[in-house]
């Protein structure tokens, strides 16, 4: 029993480490700090409500700072894509949000209240099919600053982007499948692919 708890703690720390490696802070003059995910080399995915300005300063996991240019924004899905120097940082492993089942274990990383890389754990309440939403409904605590950060599964793969909270106890996230769809519709999917190649 103790072994199991220790194994769970160890695995959690490992997943947290992986999730944090691709997490960035998005800082904008006069707007404040949000989070973002290094989705592919040179490509940061964040929320539209975080990337309000066309230029921002992105702080990578290692502490390096980079200037970022906004490539696209979609208010309907609360998504934005920023471009940084493709040599910087280590991109996330992207998972398939379509496979997420209710009850599955997930973590959210972000910079809640300005605390960089803070981790919060919970389970999937519903994966779409809820009340007229395609958002992931998560039994975990999102706070200001989590926006644009990643939701990762037990394998440490990014399956969503934090977008908002629904009351104090429920977090909502944009499924990775919706991010992929947006990137390809915006013509950024290929860019992401080319950069990755």
């Amino acid at each position, binding site marked *: 029993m103790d072994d199991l708890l220790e194994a769970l703690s160890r695995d959690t720390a490992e997943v947290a480490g992986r999730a944090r490696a691709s997490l960035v802070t998005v800082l904008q003059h006069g707007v404040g700090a949000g989070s973002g995910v290094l989705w592919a080399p040179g490509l940061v995915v964040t929320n539209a409500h975080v990337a309000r300005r066309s230029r921002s300063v992105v702080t990578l996991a290692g502490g390096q700072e980079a200037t970022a240019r906004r490539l696209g924004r979609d208010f309907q899905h609360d998504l934005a894509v920023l471009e940084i120097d493709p040599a910087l940082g280590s991109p996330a492993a992207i998972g398939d949000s379509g496979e997420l*089942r209710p009850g599955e274990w997930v973590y959210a990383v972000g910079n809640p209240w300005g605390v960089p890389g803070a981790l919060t754990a919970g389970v999937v309440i519903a994966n779409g099919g809820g009340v007229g939403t395609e958002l992931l409904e998560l*039994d975990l605590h999102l706070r200001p600053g989590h926006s644009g950060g990643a939701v990762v599964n*037990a394998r440490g793969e990014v399956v969503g982007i934090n977008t908002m909270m629904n009351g104090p106890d429920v977090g909502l996230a944009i499924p990775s499948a919706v991010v992929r769809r947006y990137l390809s519709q915006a013509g950024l999917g290929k860019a992401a692919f080319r950069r990755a190649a």
Partner: protein
Amino acid sequence: MNALEQLSDSLAAAVQSAGEGVVRVEGRRRIPSSGIVWSADGLVVTAHHTIDRRSEVQVGLPDGKATAAKVIGRDPATDLAVLRLSTAGGRVLKRIDEGQAKVGHLALALGRPGASIQSTLGVVSALEGGWRSPLGGHIEHYLQSDVVMYPGFSGGPLIDAWGRVVGMNTSALLRGIALAIPVATIERVSQALVEHGRIRRGFLGVGVQPARLPQPMEDRSGQSTGLLVASVEGGSPAERAGVMLGDVLLTLGGERLAGMEDLLAALGGDVMDRATPLEILRGGTRTTLTVTVGERPAPSEEED
């Protein structure tokens, strides 16, 4: 797979499997609630407060089909209601045995307010002995978890890591607390509801508060407190029996009334509709009245 992936996978599998015993209950105008398939012949238990005043509801089965269901009984005091499906469906889940639940056990709350199963996770936070709900219903265990009660989760099951039903979640019995009605209570109350359509509870029609008895009386009887009558409802069994303001109730049917709990327990027993001795203290003298305990009227307005 590492331990975390196994845990994640097991949780999702438990939800999927137990979800076959969870139905959607469309008993109110707002968001639907959830229900637990309770018998293979079509009984479903759900939360009383999620069904407004109607005798028939629509139920969404785990396989996606919908069926009509009759509300065959409800008990506001334990927040339980029993439905009978016109077409039986879903799977009867295993239930936990007495003593198997432990504080600290993982617990999943399941709900089906929409088409698919939904879940939140927590632990069993408190598991205590019997208690009485604010409306006077006896509940076998005080069972509290820290699961998030998502909209529409009331009436759904709290399950353990083995997929067994630990209780029925309700957010209405105690506000702001994820409370579950334990299996023992569901079994007892649902059986009574199937047989009688309601839970009968005795009604006296007095407002009381505990009061200390004079020392000599305590010395004689060993009872240190009684129930001081602060109000008597007009036309109630108490008024017909001659109970007056300022009387102190001592015993009912021979059962000692040292506190509110004792009165509720005495009225919950089999005392209705027959002459029962009510011992009181009036003007320093012990007197015995004869009261015919009535049945408590149902609350007039349903709580949401």
